[in-house]
């Protein structure tokens, strides 16, 4: 064994290298796990935030209002015909129903606040109800309508922060002309004063922080104008801070205004809004918003403090009071937001739904599927199994691959130029949208189908040819069934991509505001419509908070649709695999 020392040296070198190799492997695995963990975390954050956002849109508050369908308003001609019923003033009927709930309300401003609880468009739904059942005329019926978005969001506790506290004690109520004076032996309003003071000081601190931030930003400003603008802003914030602090520490009565928290008192079925409170917390002066049912001193009341000042919320004081009063009378119900799935788009957020977009998406996807899948799979079969390999087929192949990389908006432009301008097909129609998306999807379907066909072992083709099958028989009896799972997967991926596509559809006018869902039938293919991703895009640009939530809800709906789509695909694929 003359080479023993040499071989042990080799072994040592190998073992050293081996340790390095193991380390490299461990490192690589750690990278992989890290990448997956990161992806999962981001996905969870994304879905979590969208899901959280959408929660507010999946429930809604509806008002069930007893309305009297009087003949004068509902049936202006008095003959009970449909034509006459369709001329009725149903909004007035709803308004009368609301007024009946609040007999004390007669001021114009008050009425405006009251009628703002709902959107006038709802009168159409009452009209349909009456036209469908004319016997309602002359009687009283319960009519359920969604509350307007501001009220809805307020009742959900999303836009306004407030607190209710039950109180016991003795309050003297002195009513004089417009004002109400509440007096107590104890400091009954001390708690609210603390809330008020804390709020003022918090805002003073905030303004002071703003002022110093602006000042330091001014120091770093590039131009003189910019610096001076920032400095003046900073000075304004500092002055605001000082004034807020002064108000918090001031002696004398505390006056409640549009920039301070608001205080309401609920007692004996009525509501008093407090305008000022004495510093010792024993005397409050305010006005009656809803009349108290009993006179004289009150012993139990609810202190209702709204921390969000009225200039920082969209809902007025009075509308809040009306909404809460209706809620206390058990006329407001919170339930699943069916409107989201039974209505098409609307200018009023509480009446906006995704039904129109969903039907549009279904029709568009049908066209895409019918065009892209047979053409794509057929092309793949011909190119892979039958076409001679020459320059022409090579050229075609390269161009199919290139088409897969073309930005989708280019297909939209093509659709606009060819289908709409040249062929004269209608704009915004699912037919055109489906054709454009089919063009976009074709390369994906062809490429994945070809890959699936290529993956079928050649021995199967040889076996079929060997027993005397023609080439077509070999392909359709043996190769295609084996490639089917792969073809299905590719087609589904292509269609799912098309389902989520927005850009090309913008070009052919599917971005329009469509308040009526298209017919779910043959004629629907030519009716103007929009699709889910475009609806999301449209809503995401709307200013209302409620639309923001509906955007998230629509995203969740679209994601669920896609998951259903993919689940169906996986189920189909499993079935095909089991058969073979």
């Amino acid at each position, binding site marked *: 064994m003359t080479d023993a020392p040499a071989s042990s040296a080799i072994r040592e070198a190998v073992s050293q290298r081996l340790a390095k190799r193991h380390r490299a492997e461990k490192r690589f695995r750690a990278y992989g796990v890290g990448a997956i963990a990161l992806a999962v975390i981001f996905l969870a954050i994304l879905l979590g935030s969208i899901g959280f956002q959408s929660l507010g849109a999946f429930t809604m508050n509806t008002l069930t209002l007893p309305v009297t369908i009087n003949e004068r308003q509902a049936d202006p001609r008095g003959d009970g015909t449909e034509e006459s019923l369709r001329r009725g003033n149903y909004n007035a009927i709803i308004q009368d129903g609301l007024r009946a709930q609040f007999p004390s309300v007669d001021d114009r401003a008050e009425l405006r606040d009251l009628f703002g609880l709902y959107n006038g468009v709802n009168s159409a739904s009452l009209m349909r109800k009456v036209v469908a059942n004319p016997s309602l005329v002359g009687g009283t019926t319960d009519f359920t309508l969604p509350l307007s978005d501001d009220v809805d969001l307020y009742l959900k506790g999303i836009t306004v922060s407030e607190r209710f506290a039950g109180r016991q004690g003795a309050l003297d109520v002195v009513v004089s002309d417009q004002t109400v004076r509440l007096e107590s032996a104890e400091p009954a309003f001390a708690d609210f004063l603390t809330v008020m003071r804390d709020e003022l000081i918090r805002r003073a601190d905030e303004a002071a922080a703003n002022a110093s931030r602006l000042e330091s930003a001014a120091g770093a400003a590039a131009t003189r104008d910019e610096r001076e603008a920032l400095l003046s802003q900073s000075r304004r914030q500092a002055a605001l801070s000082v004034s807020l602090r002064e108000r918090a520490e001031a002696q004398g009565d505390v006056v409640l205004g549009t920039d301070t928290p608001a205080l309401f008192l609920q007692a004996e079925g009525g509501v008093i809004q407090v305008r000022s409170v004495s510093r010792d917390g024993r005397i409050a002066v305010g006005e009656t918003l809803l009349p108290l049912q009993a006179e004289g001193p009150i012993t139990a009341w609810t202190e209702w403090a709204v921390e969000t000042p009225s200039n920082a919320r969209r809902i007025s004081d009075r509308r809040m009071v009306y909404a809460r009063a209706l809620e206390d009378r058990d006329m407001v119900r919170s339930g699943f937001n069916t409107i989201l799935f039974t209505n098409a788009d609307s200018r009023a957020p509480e009446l906006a739904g995704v039904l129109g977009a969903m039907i549009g998406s279904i029709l568009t996807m049908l066209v895409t599927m019918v065009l892209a899948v047979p053409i794509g799979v057929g092309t793949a079969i011909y190119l892979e199994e039958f076409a001679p390999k020459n320059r022409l087929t090579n050229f075609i192949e390269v161009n199919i691959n290139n088409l897969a990389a073309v930005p989708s908006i280019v297909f939209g432009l093509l659709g606009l130029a060819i289908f709409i301008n040249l062929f004269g097909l209608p704009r915004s129609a699912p037919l055109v949208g489906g054709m454009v998306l089919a063009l976009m999807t074709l390369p994906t379907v062809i490429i994945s189908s070809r890959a699936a066909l290529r993956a079928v072992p050649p021995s199967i*083709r040889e076996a079929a040819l060997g027993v005397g099958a023609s080439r077509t028989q070999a392909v359709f009896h043996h190769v295609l069934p084996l490639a089917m799972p792969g073809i299905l997967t590719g087609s589904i991926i292509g269609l799912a991509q098309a389902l989520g596509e927005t850009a090309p559809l913008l070009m052919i006018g599917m971005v329009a505001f469509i308040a009526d869902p298209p017919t779910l039938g043959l004629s629907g293919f030519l009716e103007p419509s929009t699709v889910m991703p475009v609806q999301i895009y449209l809503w995401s640009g709307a200013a209302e908070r409620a639309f923001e939530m509906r955007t998230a809800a629509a995203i969740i709906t679209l994601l669920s649709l896609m998951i259903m789509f993919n689940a169906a695909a996986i189920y189909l694929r499993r079935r095909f695999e089991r058969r073979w």
Partner: protein
Amino acid sequence: MADDTNTSANGRTVYHANRHAHPVKVAAAGVDVSYGDKQALHGVTLDIPDRAVTAFIGPSGCGKSTFLRCINRMNDTIETARVSGSITIDGEEVNDRGVDPVILRARVGMVFQKPNPFPKSIYDNVAYGPRIHGLSNSRDELDSIVENSLKKAGLWAEVSDRLHTPGTALSGGQQQRLVIARAIAVNPEVILMDEPCSALDPIATAKIEELIDELRENYCLIIVTHSMAQAARVSQMTAFFHLGHLVEYGPTEEIFTNPTDRRTQDYITGRFG
């Protein structure tokens, strides 16, 4: 023997099978095959007797499989392949434009190196050929074709109770016999086997060899093999190919005991290849 041999155009010695009891089934004359620029076969001329097993032996890449695939025109499926020369079966030219490869392949069955049953049931595997060629008019007829084919392939006893289980679930040897049954089912005259045992264990190989010996009664069998022992065991005629040329062709005993060409001798004694 000298009167049976003559010299072909390119000076090679060519043996004819006419001194055997069996008539000539497949006759090849001057077959050239090239894949693109590369010529794989050079002027192969030989006659293959009916109801006998003819073995093609030779080192890898010598063209024996290529020649085999010419007989049922499987080379048509390879785009770059060019075949010239004449191959006749019962005097009918195979390479004629008028000959439909589909009909030809029904006459000339083929068994491949790796068992390739369709991913379908055993029954459907065997019934596929008869179905596409319309060989049966009724369900019962098809059943009996399947049963007979499986019996001839010696597989019936093993699978008769599970005809509707997937053919791919059988063992390698059973799969290969299933493939043979599938080839038999369309009632071919010639069966080509391209190294049918190379993927099998010795026991399965023995079974296939036994089967080949039985099939000899009714069919013209042509088998490509790498195993000299197998060629010696199963074949009556042997052809030795080398570098695209047919070097020697004759009765198996003669090739193995008294080869005329030096290359044949070197190959069968294991000096190369």
